[in-house]
């Protein structure tokens, strides 16, 4: 039996139409609405075994009304409450300030973005997931008989979504996803080490995804830590894609939003056209990425998504705008002109659109290097594969001070062993403006802000301090 009812999209659209009728009947100038309905199966794994199987469906609608530049928003699950939600949103609009020039976007043609729906996932049953989880547990045991999966799980989902507006935009579709995340622990010789690794895709993952091997590997290599002096040291740090992503996503995407730039709340405010990163580095947001977790034909306001270079060869070249942010900042005189870059992100049905990235890539104009090459360049320093406390990094300044228990010491270009724990601090924006080299394998990572991060290993030669415990 398919995970998704065959008429899921039709039912979603029928309910959206009911909401749209309520908006229309209210006499409001403009409106838009989003609707979601997800279905899925999930398995929890703890202490080396599958402990729970769960499934279900959830969804709802968010509607935004705009009247004379004022907007109001409300969300609901049950569209029998449409009239009340419309009234609530209108009441709020009436109390909101008018943003001169804020109108909802008109309908524009949008490219189709493929690879976001894998029909084979619809036929994956809970029993199939149980088979996959069994296989994963066996694989972990075969890689290291000491290794135990102490947490995590496997899940699949299918989501029907729709967007509808008074300006004639109507889009709907179905996306799928398959994800796995595992905490692997090795408790040996009185030393407990662990590593969390995960992977997700719009398409069906391999039965044994690569993240399984990485989780076991990092739990293994951090065993038997070195005895080191607890003295802070400024040193090069090779951050794996997994270790770098939480800090990068906490600091860089917010700094690239137009609103923060013009409000002087970004460390890159007033630096458009200036060198802000190492001259080899480029940051690109690919809203049209095939198979992306956050890409798509249209953004959360119905504007066509774009592929946009934000930092080119180290120079800040662009920023991210949604329609409302752009109108507001122009109306308030902070910038002469701004227009949507198709960067409105949905916070689900419970929040109006915000501004953010979709599929952010960090690339280098220099030839990418293998990890061995990077270690050879580094000579003396550290490799960090995960950090604790990335969410405490300061997005206003780029400063961070985090802790890692997945850190290896490098001497003469060779890994000599693990540290039990260390502090890691610095300023990420400044470190990325120093000597930076990128690895040759890009992996997609989740994000603390919006969108996905497509990052290789990143060798930061300057600007970081390591403080062994």
């Amino acid at each position: 039996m398919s995970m998704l009812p065959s008429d899921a999209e039709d039912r979603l659209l029928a309910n959206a139409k009911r909401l749209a009728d309520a908006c229309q009947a209210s006499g409001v100038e403009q409106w838009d609405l989003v609707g979601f309905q997800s279905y899925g199966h999930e398995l929890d794994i703890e202490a080396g075994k599958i402990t729970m199987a769960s499934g279900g469906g959830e969804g709802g609608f968010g509607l935004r009304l705009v009247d004379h530049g004022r907007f109001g928003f409300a969300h609901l699950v049950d569209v029998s409450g449409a009239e009340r939600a419309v009234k609530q949103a209108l009441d709020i609009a009436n109390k909101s300030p008018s943003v001169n020039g804020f109108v909802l976007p008109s309908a524009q043609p949008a490219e189709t973005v493929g690879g976001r729906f894998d029909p084979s996932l619809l036929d994956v049953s809970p029993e199939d997931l149980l088979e996959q989880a069994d296989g994963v547990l066996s694989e972990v045991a075969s890689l290291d008989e000491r290794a135990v999966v102490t947490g995590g799980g496997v899940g699949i989902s299918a989501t029907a979504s729709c967007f509808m507006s008074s300006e004639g935009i109507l889009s709907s579709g179905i996306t799928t996803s398959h994800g796995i995340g595992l905490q692997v622990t090795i408790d040996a010789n009185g030393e407990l080490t662990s590593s969390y690794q995960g992977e997700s895709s719009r398409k069906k993952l391999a039965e044994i995804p690569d993240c399984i091997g990485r989780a076991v590997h990092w739990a293994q290599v951090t065993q038997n830590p070195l005895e080191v002096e607890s003295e802070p040291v400024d040193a090069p740090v090779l951050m794996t894609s997994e270790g770098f992503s939480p800090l990068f996503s906490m600091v860089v995407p917010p700094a690239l939003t137009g609103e923060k730039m013009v409000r002087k709340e970004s460390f890159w405010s007033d630096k458009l056209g200036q060198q802000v990163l190492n001259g080899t580095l480029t940051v690109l947001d690919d809203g049209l990425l095939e198979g992306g977790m956050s890409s798509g034909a249209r953004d959360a306001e119905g504007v066509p998504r774009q592929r946009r270079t934000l930092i080119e060869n180290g120079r800040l070249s662009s920023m991210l705008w949604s329609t409302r942010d752009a109108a507001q900042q122009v109306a308030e005189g902070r910038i002469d002109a701004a227009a949507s870059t198709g960067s409105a992100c949905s916070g689900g049905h419970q929040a109006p659109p915000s501004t953010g990235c979709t599929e952010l890539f960090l690339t280098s104009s220099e030839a990418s290097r293998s990890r061995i090459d990077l270690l050879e360049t580094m000579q003396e320093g550290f490799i960090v594969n995960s950090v604790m406390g990335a969410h405490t990094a300061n997005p206003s300044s780029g400063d961070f001070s985090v802790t890692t228990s997945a850190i290896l010491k490098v001497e003469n270009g060779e890994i000599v062993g693990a540290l039990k724990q260390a502090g890691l601090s610095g300023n990420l924006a400044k470190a990325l403006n120093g000597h930076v080299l990128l690895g040759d394998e890009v992996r997609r990572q989740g994000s603390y802000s919006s969108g996905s991060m497509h990052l290789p290993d990143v060798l930061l030669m300057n600007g970081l301090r390591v403080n062994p415990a």
Partner: protein
Amino acid sequence: MVMAATPGTNHMPSTGRYLDQDRVRKALGHAQELGATYAEVRVMSLTESTVAMRDGVLERAIPGQELGMTLRVLADGAWGVHSTTDLASLNDQIESTTRLAKAVAARRSPKDRAVALADVPIIVDEQHWRSVLDVRHTELDVKMELMNDLYRGATGHDDVVSVRAGWSDEHLHTELMTTEGMDRVWSFQRSLIHGMVTARRDGEVVSYRTRHGGQGGLEVIQACDLVELGEQAQRAALRLLTAERAPSGKMPLIADRDLTGVYIHEALGHPCEADLVAAGDSCLDGKLGHQIGNEIVTVVDDPTMMGGYGAYPVDDEGVDTREKVLIKNGVLTEYLNHRETAHHFGVDPNGGARAQDGLHHPLVRMSNTMIQGGHHADMDELMEDIEYGVYACGTRGGQVDTGRGSFQFAAQEAWLIENGELTRPLKDVSVSGLTLQILKNVDGLTRDAMLASPGFCGKGQTVPVGDGGPVMRIREALVG
């Protein structure tokens, strides 16, 4: 689109019911006929409101009503769970969810224990913690006026580039029915106001966050001097503009109430969650009855602490709440439990089961977690014999690796302590350590313990919590 069987478009009266009791009893009975040893249906309705203002101007206000239901079936010693917004679909899910539980059970190896639940009193009742001023009847204008008080306190300096104020309130209504005959309904409210002051000077951008809130309605926010809260935040943001980077290394640390709360939440609270202990993912496994901290350290977790942001009348398995003493004079005395872990460890459940909402199953969670007060009169007394150290205050959050027992938490601002005096302001201070080492390094606590700012805790699901304690001194901590 599945539809929620909401009883209408009006807010539910707190004494009303979403669940059709006869229908649910039949559905649960059907699960038993199919071989379930236990089954429950829990529905939660959330009436919520969030408001955001910037520089005294409304940015957005979001009213919302969410409803979710979770069916849990225990069969052959394993769980099957189904969550949905479609209350009417309950009957259709009984068979598949029971089958799912049995499929999980069939994969259990002989060495693994079957899931079983500790016995609890079977209660049929309603408990409603009524707010003095019900959040559902609070007009947007009233909220905006209070948020503007915070704004007025925080603005008015050339270096302040923006002041954001936020509001969140919620009315939670939960119903739980089980195959054991439990039939409980409870409701309560939470309110929160928060602000962020961003300041900029010579290209340097800093921000400072402040929060006030707790269990209850509008009266919780009205009890706070919001102008003063804003003024404090402005002063702190301006201090950060002149603050230096913190020194790195091991040194004495004094933590204010906020940071003491986050420390005890991360370093001790999480490793005390019995689901993590049972999964082999806690450094406190096997440590019950052991001295794990200095004898001045006593820690409680208490959902009955009325007014605390982590307070709740009944846990999400229908178990009455009570104070849990996690550490008594440095000795680990109790884990936080739900029914499954309580059976595993052979103890009574202690009301630690919490679910984020109606669409999530309960996990073992903290509520209001505090270190109790000690014997020092004030911070000056704690500081007087420190030659070189750090006083850190306010929290930017923390994180823990419960298995290794390593944790990290970050302060909003800090001062250098030199020869018993606060000298220079510092920024970006974080503290890390190992639970089993640092609890023994706590060597000073002021007398006056109380809950600090409200917070949120993530463990796959997000729940509101209260943390706090007295001002605390740690003899040696790794400052970054």
